[in-house]
């Protein structure tokens, strides 16, 4: 038993490490092909994401919306409902929160809270539209959530291009005016972007860990994800779980957007959530973490660091910053296979063949 536990612990620690190293190797090959020294590039990348205070602050601030949207995705995915619409939900949540902050006479902490609640409510409603369509009309959640991303992105961009556009300055940038000073999250110093939003995000993620593991809702959604029929048989109302998980997922996405707006940008900018790809990075982080919020937090910080390092790399070395995305997708792909398991299976398969027993049963693993 002890041996088994030790082996399992080793596997759970080793397979992400192997995946990350393999992905970094892929990144190195790509960089070699473009004629860059990968060792130098990686050194640059990691010092300019984790090992200098300014960049570390950038990384942490960047990781906040990523971990929240990652947990938002995990909430829905672990219950078996594939929500790909975090990006659209973030757009709507962010826009509504920004509109409230700009046009309503709200001030200070309570004002911020009110705006965030408004944004979360809007994002929740947007997440519930595809849920309702799936529940009532069997319209595939995957397609509808993803299609709404594109539609919402275009429509929200309309608002900052026309009615809400900031005409001050040269007026070229498609963005709204800035929100009031008292509504912003507290910034610790003027030297870097570090602000309270990061801690709030981390707290929410830890809270979600307890929701996932210690509450009735968390248990029910997990069972629904594992086996819908069994959940039904056990008396879990799948409709209720579906709407609850999707609503929570939407609310968390909306919260992620608000964190970005009240903590970093202070305004709604054209395509601010689609061009940055927070939602997708969050999705990757949560897939690497296997739906676990605490691990999602860790991997979000890591992936945010890759992104920040990637932008630094583009500035200094001239390697396109998409190298960070390439590495991130490779990690997800490699970790999804669980090469250790495959390797062990192959080895034991060989052993069994020697003994003369049939191991392979057709195509069924």
């Amino acid at each position: 038993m002890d041996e088994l536990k030790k082996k399992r612990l080793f596997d759970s620690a080793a397979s992400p490490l192997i995946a990350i190293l393999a992905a970094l190797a892929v990144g190195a090959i790509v960089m070699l092909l473009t004629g860059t020294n990968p060792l130098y590039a990686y050194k640059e990348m990691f010092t300019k994401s984790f090992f200098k205070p300014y960049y570390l602050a950038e990384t942490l601030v960047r990781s906040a919306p990523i971990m929240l949207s990652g947990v938002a995705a995990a909430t829905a995915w672990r219950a078996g409902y594939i929500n790909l619409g975090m990006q659209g939900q973030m757009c709507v949540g962010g826009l509504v929160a920004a509109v409230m902050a700009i046009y309503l006479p709200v001030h200070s902490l309570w004002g911020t809270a009110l705006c965030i609640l408004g944004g979360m409510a809007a994002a929740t409603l947007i997440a519930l539209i595809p849920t309702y369509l799936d529940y009532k009309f069997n319209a595939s959640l995957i397609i509808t959530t993803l299609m709404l991303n594109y539609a919402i992105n275009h429509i929200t961009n309309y608002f900052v291009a026309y009615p809400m556009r900031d005409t001050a300055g040269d007026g070229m940038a498609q963005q709204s005016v800035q929100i009031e000073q008292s509504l912003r999250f507290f910034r610790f110093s003027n030297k870097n972007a570090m602000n309270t939003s990061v801690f709030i995000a981390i707290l929410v993620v830890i809270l979600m860990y307890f929701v996932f593991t210690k509450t009735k809702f968390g248990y029910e959604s997990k069972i629904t994800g594992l086996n819908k029929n069994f959940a039904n048989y056990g008396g879990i109302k799948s409709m209720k779980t579906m709407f609850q998980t999707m609503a929570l997922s939407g609310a968390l996405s909306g919260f992620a957007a608000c964190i970005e707006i009240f903590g970093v940008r202070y305004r709604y900018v054209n395509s601010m959530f689609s061009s940055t790809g927070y939602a997708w990075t969050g999705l990757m982080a949560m897939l690497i973490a296997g739906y676990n919020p605490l691990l999602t937090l860790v991997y979000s910080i890591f992936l945010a660091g890759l992104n920040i390092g990637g932008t630094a790399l583009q500035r200094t070395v001239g390697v396109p910053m998409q190298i960070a995305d390439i590495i991130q997708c490779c990690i997800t792909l490699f970790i999804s296979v669980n090469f250790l398991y495959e390797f062990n299976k192959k080895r034991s398969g060989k052993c069994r063949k020697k003994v003369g027993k049939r191991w392979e049963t057709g195509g069924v693993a």
Partner: protein
Amino acid sequence: MGDRRRRMNNLYLAAVINTTFRYTTPVLFAALGSLACTKCAVFNVALEGQMLAASFVAIVANYYTHNAFISLLAGVAAGAFVAWIVAVFQIKWKVRDMVVGTAMNLLVQSVTAFLMQAIFGSRGTVQGFGMVPLTKINLSFLKFSPFLYRMFEDLSTIDYLGYIVAVLIFIYFYKTVSGFHLLSVGINADAADSLGIKSQRIQIWAMVFSGILCGFGGVVHAMGNVTVFAENMTSGRGFIAMGAASMAQSHPLGAIASSLFFGTALSLSKTLQGYINSYFTEAIPYLCTVLAITIYGVVISTQRRKATIKM
């Protein structure tokens, strides 16, 4: 005067139909690829990535060779290659389809953006460089009617090929032995295995085939009209195609109809730009997709209800 204006309007309509045909082709190819996978019980989410890879590689090949045919082959090969990777992950190593699909779509998106900067040194779009478009066909026997002539003006060979491939796939599925084998894998892979059909191999080949089809779609998308590549230029067409395939209930001939519907939505989003703000028209195809699969769901559920009442 009135007569002339009517003729102008007619020609405008013909131009809109022409655009519709152009926008239909990529969706049709990808929808056929999607249903080829669905028919043997594989859920292919990476259509988008396969198309985008094909578009990009076709443009790169075009940049170096200035030969439309070589670009086409290169693009199709790229689509097939991406599909093969997805197949190995999804079918051989049993990774969840959604995980491989989304990761692969994002990977292709970032790899193409990366290589675009590495090769062309530009961000955003690649255009010009003396790149050639696909060979255009003009049906001169339609000259007698300006309307019909305009309707089919400057379509490429691949645009016509889409419909032919749909019919060929229909024949393959329902009239040939190996097509039946493929369908049997979709109905019950274990049963098919027990009868000596290598289900896994068929599934992998179906995936690669879908990659080839998406490759055609991607190449047409990049080189059919204006020869251009833009970052993430497929913008959800793979998923629109998934919607088209599911609306057609994975029937190849039905896919023609549903793809034409989405082609119309896509072309409307361009032609309505003169009348409605472009931010809203850009959203039309996506909202249409949501609406269409919802209506499809309503129709199917009422049909089922009627069927159960009859029983």
